[in-house]
């Protein structure tokens, strides 16, 4: 196969072009059969007409013969041959001698067999050897005379040419126009694809903020661009999150790591007795335990955000979790000077029990740490689970200082701790995990004012009452 120019072979390979070519082929075939049918039908019509004419003339001439003998017949033939565009006539006697005719030359053996057929003849007014096609009928007259009447049918072919020639042209025009249209449409498609490819190459090269152009026509390319852009938004958000995490890890893991190392080096340098070494080692182990905890929390958040846990989701009794976690934390809260109460309506959600419990535990843990009232009285924590329509609302409210409205967005970010001194224990990942768990379950985490205090609400899509039992 001849190698086509690159741009053309690219055009031909596109889906749009292939589709168009297939349509064109089907259409051309259809047109071809249509024209063929019309031409064939026309030809049939002409032939019937010719046969009818010839039969009528034969009838007329044999009538003349019966009425006035050979003389009247010859006279009639003679008169007819003078008309323009006349038929072919030949009259022969029983010996085969031609008595009257207007034909130059004709195969005489035709006269042997009466009936109709096609034959070639030469015209008497043309000198050349050109032969024309004619439809003839041979008729036996009484007295051994043979009468041949025929009509030139070259006209029939002319008519066919009249139909077929323009049809061929039309077909050619259709194919050419179709191909041109195909190339035009395909090039437009290719142009948009090329633009998309170029943009995606830019994005792949590292510029994650690039987006595909949307023309606003709402066609399939726009739809594709929209969903690809949505995907890019998500990827960019994840990448920014990842970068933030790595920055934060750099900060929040390196700081304790440095402390750990300094302490170990310090202990080595200063020396001392066994007790001193032991103390240094014990703090080292404590710090490493804290590091592992932070690391685990980060991993858990990452997993929850990646949505891997979605495969393990089952029907979970949220009320049982609320009561369980309340029961787990109540002694601690009591010891810290807070009363922990729980009110739970039966609600089931589709989720991961362990993650939901951990999320609630984190909220309660926060409430215990930050929920003591300013005036120094006894604090209270209320866990409340209820159902509103299709939503399960899990609320943890305290009577502490609350979170200033301006900071409410920020608290779910990783490693954010509003307590700038970081004097109270915690990794700064607790609420990030809750938010990640909420997102994993298709819910959301909101912060409100419990006046006084903080109300944290975890909204999750609830299951139908019957769904969980199936």
């Amino acid at each position, binding site marked *: 196969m001849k190698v086509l120019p690159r741009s053309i072979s690219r055009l031909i390979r596109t889906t749009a072009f292939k589709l168009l070519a297939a349509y064109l082929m089907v259409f051309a075939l259809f047109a071809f059969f249509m024209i063929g049918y019309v031409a064939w039908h026309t030809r049939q019509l002409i032939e019937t007409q010719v046969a009818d004419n010839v039969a009528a003339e034969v009838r007329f001439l044999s009538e003349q013969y019966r009425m006035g003998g050979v003389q009247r017949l010859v006279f009639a033939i003679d008169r007819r041959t003078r008309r323009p565009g006349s038929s072919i006539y030949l009259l022969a006697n029983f010996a085969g001698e031609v008595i009257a005719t207007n034909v130059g030359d004709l195969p005489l053996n035709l006269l042997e067999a009466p009936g109709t057929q096609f034959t070639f003849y030469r015209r008497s007014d043309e000198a050349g050897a050109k032969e024309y096609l004619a439809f003839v009928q041979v008729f036996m007259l009484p007295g051994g005379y043979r009468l041949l009447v025929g009509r030139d049918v070259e006209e029939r072919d002319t008519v066919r040419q009249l139909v077929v020639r323009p049809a061929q042209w039309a077909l050619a025009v259709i194919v050419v126009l179709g191909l041109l249209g195909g190339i035009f449409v395909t090039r437009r498609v290719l142009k948009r694809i090329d633009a998309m490819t170029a943009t995606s190459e830019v994005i792949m090269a590292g510029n994650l903020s690039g987006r595909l152009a949307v023309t606003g026509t709402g066609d399939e390319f726009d739809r594709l661009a929209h969903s690809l852009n949505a995907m890019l938004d998500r990827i960019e958000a994840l990448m920014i999150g990842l970068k933030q995490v790595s920055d934060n890890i750099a900060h929040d893991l390196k700081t304790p790591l440095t402390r750990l190392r300094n302490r170990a080096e310090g202990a080595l340098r200063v020396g001392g007795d066994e007790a001193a070494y032991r103390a240094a080692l*014990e703090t080292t*182990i404590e710090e*490493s*335990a804290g590091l*592992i*905890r932070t690391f*685990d*929390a980060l*991993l*858990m958040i990452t*997993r929850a955000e990646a949505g*891997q*846990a979605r*495969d*393990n989701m089952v029907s979970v009794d949220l009320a049982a979790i609320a009561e*369980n976690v309340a*029961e*787990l*934390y109540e*002694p*601690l809260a*009591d*010891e810290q000077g807070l009363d922990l109460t729980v009110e739970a309506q039966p609600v089931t959600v589709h989720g*991961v029990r*362990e*993650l939901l*419990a*951990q999320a609630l*535990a*984190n909220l309660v*843990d926060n409430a*215990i*740490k930050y929920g003591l009232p300013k005036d120094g009285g006894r604090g209270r924590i209320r866990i409340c689970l209820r159902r509103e329509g299709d939503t399960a609302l899990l609320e943890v409210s305290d009577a502490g200082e609350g979170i200033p409205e301006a900071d409410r967005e920020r608290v779910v970010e990783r490693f954010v701790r509003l307590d700038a001194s970081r004097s109270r*224990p*915690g*990794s700064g990942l*607790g609420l990030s995990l809750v938010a990640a768990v909420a997102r994993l379950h298709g819910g959301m985490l909101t912060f409100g004012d419990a006046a006084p205090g903080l109300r944290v609400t975890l909204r999750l899509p609830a299951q139908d009452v019957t769904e969980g039992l199936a």
Partner: protein
Amino acid sequence: MTLLLQSDDSLAMRLLLIEDDRDAADYIRKAFREAGHVVDHAADGEEGLALALDGHYDVLVVDRMLPRRDGLSVVSELRRRGEQTPVLILSALGQVDDRVVGLRAGGDDYLPKPYAFTELLARVEALCRRGAPQSTDTLYKVGELELDRLAHRVSRDGKDIPLQPREFRLLEYLMRHAGQVVTRTMLLENVWDYHFDPQTNVIDVHVSRLRSKVDKGFDVPMIHTVRGAGYMVREGLK
């Protein structure tokens, strides 16, 4: 501290450790020996499987990622051949779903890396079935402390001690492993069925509440705190 790590001497165990990291293996072997146990070591899955099949061990400690045959496959192959020795799986993968996979393969416990040795020791001792009360036992008895699992009754020195249901389960777990160290995470896992890290020591408060009911008014405590490790129920020792 070393002394406190040691449990009852009569409970010396034969362990098989299947772990390919030589440093970690050496450390664990040494630490287990110091705690009075006998440890064999295999450095890959095939060797581990062969040893486990004819070694009559009390507990197997199997790393999840091993050369030649991975840890989960070792465990499931052992189970397929009817070997019922308790198995603790060690793994760098610590998420809930990983744990489920490990337990489904036939493991009896799952400990994510990195771990404190005290945690590993406590869990291995808890897995050892020799000398431990049977799960069919209905009465646990440690000195003068008695726990009736059927009647849900606890008494010390013949005197009834009323307990909340969760306190009962807590004491039940501690008494089933009497003489052994029980860590906080073991309590959270087995009494509350949670595997997450509660950040604050919620368990300590539960234990101190239980202790105030069980040990109050008696000279000798039953529930002991093992520093840096967890808790232990045992008789005597002022």
